[in-house]
């Protein structure tokens, strides 16, 4: 476990080193991404992901994850890819968090089957079970994903910030004043973001960046003005910028309207995983996917509906420099 002081020191060092650096997959990061390199986003689909009973096929989800991760990393062997992810994430022998999203309730939360598949691959890559921590806001959100609370340090752990608590100190970035979950600040060396793609009544889209609302004590304070600049500000905090290394987005089931809650009348199955390091690029792609579906069913685009996810361009702007939203700067690989 890293103390808060130790973490801040590491984050500052990492921030300095990040200038001019590229990541393990040759992708430019942060300010660098604005210099010319493209951000890679993989959208992997399997139309048969849901069985005839409407339930996800665990084996197919695992296979889809392997295809997506292999494509993203360039490693043909998934286990080798995961070893690289762990190593480059600076998380060897350290705790790796899997941040889910269960706020929407049972019908529209990160699917446990995906979380289990990621945890399995991490273990095959040499990560001890006790060094895998599945987490979210609270027990109810995790249970909505189909997960079971477990605090046994010798097993894959699963609990929320209601167990860990929040830091006493209030951190400030831009207009945001937040207190972070101790799971993020003290427990995890690296976090894999596992959000679920949804329409959002205020922010337009909730996916990679918006999922970070679940790591602070009072996310409601960040919802003004369509969550802009709230989402961008929050993701700009060093602890998030540095520790969220990879997003494996769950777009297997989604709501294209009426979100972020469960609205079965607007449910659809994109049957996809969306993977990348650039959270801005991922959200930009996700926005396009949602709008495409909305158009297909005769709904207005999010822009026309008056709730475009403006936080995406804010996050891409020079004040935040969290990634790229220009489609010309995104290398989208659809498999």
């Amino acid at each position, binding site marked *: 476990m890293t103390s808060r002081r130790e973490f801040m020191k590491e984050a500052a060092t990492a921030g300095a080193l990040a200038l001019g650096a590229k990541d393990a997959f040759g992708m430019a990061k942060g300010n660098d991404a604005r210099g010319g390199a493209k951000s890679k986003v993989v959208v992997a689909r399997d139309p048969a992901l849901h069985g005839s009973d409407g339930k996800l096929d665990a084996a197919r989800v695992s296979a889809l994850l392997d295809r997506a991760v292999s494509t993203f990393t360039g490693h043909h062997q998934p286990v080798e890819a995961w070893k690289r992810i762990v190593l480059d994430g600076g998380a060897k022998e350290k705790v790796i968090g899997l941040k889910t999203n269960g706020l929407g309730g049972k019908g529209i939360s990160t699917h446990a089957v995906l979380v289990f598949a990621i945890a399995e691959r991490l273990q095959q890559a040499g990560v001890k079970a006790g060094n895998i921590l599945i987490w979210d806001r609270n027990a109810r959100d995790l249970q909505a994903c189909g997960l079971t609370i477990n605090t046994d340090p010798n097993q894959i752990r699963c609990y929320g910030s209601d167990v860990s608590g929040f830091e006493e100190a209030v951190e400030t970035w831009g207009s945001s004043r937040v207190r972070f979950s101790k799971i993020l600040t003290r427990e995890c060396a690296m976090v894999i973001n596992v959000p679920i793609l949804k329409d959002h009544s205020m922010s337009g889209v909730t996916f990679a960046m918006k999922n970070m609302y679940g790591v602070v004590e009072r996310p*409601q304070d960040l919802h003004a003005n369509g969550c802009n600049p709230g989402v961008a500000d929050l993701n700009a905090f060093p602890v998030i910028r540095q520790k969220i290394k990879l997003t494996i987005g769950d777009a297997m089931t989604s709501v294209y309207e009426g979100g972020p809650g469960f609205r079965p009348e607007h449910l659809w199955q994109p049957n996809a995983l969306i993977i990348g390091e650039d959270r801005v690029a991922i959200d930009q792609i996700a926005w396009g996917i949602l709008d495409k579906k909305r158009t297909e069913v005769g709904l207005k685009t999010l822009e026309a509906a008056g709730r475009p996810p403006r936080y995406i361009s804010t996050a891409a702007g020079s004040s935040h420099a969290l990634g790229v939203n220009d489609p010309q700067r995104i290398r989208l690989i659809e498999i």
Partner: protein
Amino acid sequence: MKKIHILSVMGVVLAIVAGGAFTGCKKKGASPFPASGSVAGWEKSSETRTFEPKDLWQYIDGDSEQYIQAGVVSTTTSDYKYKGQLEAVVDVYTMSGPEGAQTILERGRTKDASVIAVGDQGLQYAQSVIFRKGAHLVRIVAYQSNAETSNALAALAHGVEANL
């Protein structure tokens, strides 16, 4: 003697006031959630949770804003199970007036909605029922769908309506 008489009168007045207040409280605080078995096949499968407007985000995140703008006063929710299989959630939003409930009902309406005779106005979808009654807005959502879902949700909606 006079003192005893005054005390007696005060006692009667207090009893009447207390009785009235109790009756009022009981009616106002009565649960809208049908008890297990009171609607055929339905079991109440969780405790009732209540959210004040300032805490509603904990339940429905950013969706809370539209309810707050429509004048939500309190929100209660409970899970249900039908015949041990079909899972559903019942949300009861109590607004400051009927117009707030009407606003929310109409806002989410789609062409898939069919009218259902429950409350002052009701809409039914394949896996959900939403209706308003006075200042109450009720949303019942099933997590699964089978041949019985539609009729089962309608029955539960009537069960909730009877308690409002």
